[in-house]
């Protein structure tokens, strides 16, 4: 059907649709109660004339007395308090305040007295502006809804005394080195521990876990997958020791622009993501890159001296010392011992001592080119990665993808447990490529007053999720939403064990007011099925069309 025909068909339907209000109702309310305008009555005309005359007399009297200190009409005395008002705006505010002190009943009676009843609906609407604020009890249990819709976590038992690689249900790999965890008292954990894991790659799983992709400044990010890791030993929640990390290999090839973020939930169950600047970097170790004793020294230092990422950041910008042979013709290596006392300084001094001892105990008893050393901090597997990468690239063409993934090293290294996210700032929308910045706007949805709902805006084009929980104001606001995106709005609530759901596809470029009308679902299974359907590939695809 052509567009013009489609439109004509719609107009035809609209013309045939029954009237939204019968003519009898309108005529009854309009004709019966229309009275003559009060200003047209003789009495009213008389009052107006007398008032104008009195005002004229007052002005002329003041002019004759040359009283210019108080201009006419400048000051008005109110009846109740005698407070002076200086401007018409003050007078208006005072009148409104005075009206606010009235009860609802008195206003209704006032309206009835002053106006005809045919305008009742209009007057009720207007007088509602002056009614005292009434606290409406909030309905809708959002926290319970969030708990009910959460997916169960995958449970694994690991031996903390051994290196472990876990493969979760969706194929994500978690690399855990031995003795990675510590208990709340700070003691290194050995023996069995329980590991809870969740993997979220699609919008349905984001919805079940109430996840959004806003960073701590409120800007929306583009996600490449979210994970939850929690380690337990008995009743103790375990944390990762300094200098250790949990390696993560996602189940797909992650774009280079993605970084690792850590999530923090607030009291409203909002999650804010904070970037780990070294999320792609392993915890560093001291390493020497040359000389005949390098392997022994590397082993010694990687085992006994572990650095956390923050220390590595501190080392990066400090001054390194170069060491030369006795004839000053060759660089032996670099050290960085000029630091405040601590692990790095100790390691540095130990390194220098060992290298000299080994050189002195050498058969030739001289510091030869074979004993050159370089004192550096590197990721444990980085050297192995660079050594293996050409090999991996060469074999990738003829070995199965699953086997290739097995030999891959982790891509992201988390130093905290909890919610993790592979995120990046969204790429520029094609519509705004020339402007080099995507314009943003706040999106407000009007919802029933007094109802507490959970609103989520899914942007499938850039794989972002914005969440908002309303207050009692009857509005739901999503902050800093990029323009020019197709979006899916889901609004849900739980009232009296029944699920209230609303779904709408919209365009953030040209927002129109949304009137939320809920469907009601009785069972949790049916609600989850609705959620899945609302966010399936077909549903998302229709939104991006």
């Amino acid at each position, binding site marked *: 059907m052509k567009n013009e025909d489609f439109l004509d068909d*719609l107009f035809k339907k609209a013309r045939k649709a029954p*009237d939204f209000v019968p003519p009898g109702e309108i*005529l009854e*309310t309009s*004709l019966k109660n229309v009275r003559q305008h009060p200003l047209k009555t003789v009495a009213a005309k008389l009052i107006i004339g007398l008032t104008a005359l009195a005002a004229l007399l007052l002005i002329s009297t003041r002019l004759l007395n040359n009283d210019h200190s108080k201009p006419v009409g400048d000051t008005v005395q109110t009846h109740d308090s005698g407070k002076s008002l200086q401007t018409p705006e003050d007078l208006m505010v005072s009148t409104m305040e005075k009206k606010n002190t009235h009860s609802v009943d008195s206003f209704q009676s006032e309206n009835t007295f002053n106006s005809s009843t045919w305008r009742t609906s*209009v007057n009720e609407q207007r007088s509602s502006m002056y009614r005292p604020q009434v606290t409406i009890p909030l309905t809708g249990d959002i926290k319970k809804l969030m708990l009910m819709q959460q997916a169960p976590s995958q449970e694994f038992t690991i031996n903390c005394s051994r290196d472990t690689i876990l493969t979760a249900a969706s194929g994500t790999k978690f690399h855990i080195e031995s003795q990675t965890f510590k208990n709340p008292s700070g003691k290194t954990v050995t023996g069995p521990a329980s590991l809870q894991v969740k993997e979220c790659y699609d919008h349905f799983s984001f919805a079940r876990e109430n996840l959004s992709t806003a960073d701590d400044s409120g800007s929306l990010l583009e996600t490449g997958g979210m994970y939850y890791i929690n380690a337990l030993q008995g009743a103790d929640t375990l944390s990762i020791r300094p200098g250790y990390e949990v390696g993560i290999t996602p189940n797909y090839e992650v774009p280079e622009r993605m970084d690792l973020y850590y999530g923090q939930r607030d009291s409203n169950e909002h999650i804010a993501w904070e970037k780990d600047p070294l999320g792609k970097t392993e915890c560093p170790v001291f390493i020497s890159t040359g000389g005949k004793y390098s392997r022994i020294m590397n082993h010694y230092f990687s085992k006994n001296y572990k650095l956390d990422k923050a220390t590595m950041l501190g080392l990066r910008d400090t001054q390194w010392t170069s060491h030369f042979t006795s004839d000053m013709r060759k660089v032996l290596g670099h050290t960085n011992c000029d630091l405040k006392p601590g692990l790095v300084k100790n390691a540095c001094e130990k390194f220098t001592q060992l290298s000299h001892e080994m050189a002195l105990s050498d058969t030739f008893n001289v510091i030869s080119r074979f004993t050159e050393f370089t004192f550096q901090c590197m990721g444990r597997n980085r050297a192995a990665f660079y050594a293996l990468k050409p090999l991996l690239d060469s074999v990738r063409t003829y070995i199965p993808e699953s086997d290739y993934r097995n030999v891959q090293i982790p891509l992201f290294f988390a130093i905290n447990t909890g919610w993790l996210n592979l995120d990046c700032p969204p790429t520029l929308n094609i519509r705004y490529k020339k402007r080099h910045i995507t314009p943003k706007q706040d999106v407000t949805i009007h919802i029933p007053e007094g109802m507490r709902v959970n609103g989520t805006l899914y942007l499938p084009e850039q794989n972002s999720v914005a969440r908002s929980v309303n207050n009692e104001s009857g509005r739901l606001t999503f902050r800093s939403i990029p323009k020019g995106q197709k979006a899916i709005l889901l609004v849900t609530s739980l009232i009296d064990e029944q699920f209230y759901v609303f779904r709408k596809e919209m365009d953030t470029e040209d927002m129109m007011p949304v*009137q939320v009308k809920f469907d009601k679902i009785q069972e949790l299974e049916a609600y989850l099925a609705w959620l899945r359907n609302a966010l399936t590939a077909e549903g998302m695809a229709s939104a991006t069309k």
Partner: protein
Amino acid sequence: LSNKQQEFTALYLPLHPQLARYCKALVNDTDDAKDLLSDTVSIAYQQFEAIRDHSAFKYYLFGIAIRLFRKKLSRSKTFISIHSPVAETLVSSSASDAQSDVGHLYQAIDRLNPHQKEIVVLFELSGFSLNEIAELKNMNLSTVKTHLSRGRQELIRILNPRKETIH
């Protein structure tokens, strides 16, 4: 009923469906539309005696509705609409497809600019001819045609959003 009321009712009843559709399409809210309709009829009835030519009653009635709508538009910029709090009434009624189509149409009309909206609604829903609209709105005929054409194109665009292609 008095003679005035009988006379007014006789003239009003045939025009009620057109005027009701017009008010509904302009404000896209049943309560607001009822208010607009009620105000229009009340004002028309109050000043009914001033009409000399009853054949111009249609223009007279729609002229009042247009002026009231513009007043309402300027007022409504400062207010937001808040809906009923009763949860039970929030469940959407099982509206037929035709009604939901009409609802979408009204929503789309609501997004037109005021001039286009008035002209599209007068022509398509209230059954005015182009000449009548030009006379009612005191506009050139070609201007009315232009507004109508652009309004229809805009409606088609809103109801069938074009796909973005990435080159």
